[in-house]
């Protein structure tokens, strides 16, 4: 139907997440009609990402250099490690501006049904980080995995593994979203919100 190269582009775009055949066609024709430098800029940035981005050798965040910008930042507290499932979770935590420590990316969560066990995650690398604290003593590990079944199982597994090592192991709190409504809160979340209530000074 379409000329070879454009059909090829449609097929490639259609492989992207959330892009169906119709959207792929729309994007392909947009690129075809767009100024040449704009389209090539996209091509160049895809090439750049694939060539220049790698994983930080310390925390496994995406990085341009051997050590990511967070691990390399002297203002960050290396004694506190926030354990997350995915580099995208780092973005979410960073947006809060509440955390000034460093991270560790596991690369997923325990999921027995899909065959993801501790060996498939970067658990050993985390333990190695604790073991060879050549420069800093690690004081606290914050378990910041998703509050779903897999994330909770991962947090419990890590807590069991880490707590004998004599450091502070904490789990992020679970509660109601700001602007939410008690009426629509599920029992598990509301129950945890109650269990984790805190004193209020009037």
């Amino acid at each position, binding site marked *: 139907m379409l000329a070879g190269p454009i059909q090829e582009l449609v097929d490639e775009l259609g492989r992207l997440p959330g892009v169906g055949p119709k959207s792929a066609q729309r994007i392909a024709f947009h690129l075809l009609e767009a100024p040449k430098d704009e389209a090539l800029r996209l091509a160049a940035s895809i090439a750049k990402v694939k060539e220049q981005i790698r994983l930080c050798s310390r925390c496994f965040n995406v990085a341009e250099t051997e050590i990511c910008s967070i691990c390399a930042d002297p203002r960050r507290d290396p004694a506190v490690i926030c354990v997350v499932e995915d580099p995208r979770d780092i973005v979410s935590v960073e947006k809060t501006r509440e955390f000034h420590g460093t991270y560790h990316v596991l690369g997923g969560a325990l999921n*027995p049904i899909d065959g993801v*066990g*501790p060996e498939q995650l970067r658990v050993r690398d985390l333990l190695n980080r604790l073991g060879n604290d050549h420069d800093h003593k690690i004081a606290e590990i914050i378990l910041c995995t998703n509050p779903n079944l897999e994330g*909770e199982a991962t947090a419990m*597994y890590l807590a069991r593994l880490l707590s004998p090592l004599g450091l502070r192991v904490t789990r992020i709190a679970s509660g109601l979203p700001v602007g939410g409504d008690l009426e629509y809160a599920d029992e598990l979340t509301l129950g945890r919100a109650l269990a984790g209530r805190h004193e209020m000074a009037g």
Partner: protein
Amino acid sequence: MGTFRDEGVVLRTIKLGEADRIVTFVTPEHGKVRAVAKGIRRPKSKLVGRLEPLTHVTMMCWKGRELDVVTQAEVLDHFRGIRDDLDRMPAAFTMLETVDHLAVERQPMPALFKTLVGALRVLEERASPVLLGAFLLKALTLEGIGPVVASCASCDEDAPLVAFDAHSGGFLCRSCRSGQAVSAETVRLVRQILGGELRAALAAPPSRATAEVERLATSATEYHLDRRLRSAHLSSGFG
């Protein structure tokens, strides 16, 4: 097409698009149901927290052609005792995985559903070493593919049974033996489980026999499903 209501236990979920998930349930009246939970990955969704795996819910769905759509869900049981205990979770995962493979879409399976909910309740209350094995054997029997336990599966002789082979379909006597060797206690436990004395079997303390029951039940399940139960093999490395 319209809507339908049913109870269900969430077996697994997979991400779909930006904020949705496809949730797989097992239900008594509609068998396995795969339904889209729209917007469930947003923290303020009215479905959030209700459709995690290992949740017993009552729900309402729009019937779709391929996938249904969950419109409402209310939790009947979160099984917190399992959820908060790393040691009980592997057995629960294995049960969910098995049911996911046994259940057929849109084919009522009230007995399998009841067995699953019952087994999860028992798992939440106490840690019986034969629970997982008992669940698997019961589930296979409900599907009509349970093992032969009364006499030798190969020669039908009423001789003492000394081995279990999923390929032969059950326990075997000394002259036909193949597969896994089992003790007389194991045979007795399996007969109790399938013979209406489940309660007595569940009270058995951990022993070599209870470990054998779990092993033979897992191998029989894997043989009939023609696939490995991933969660059963990971459980040993869990914690």
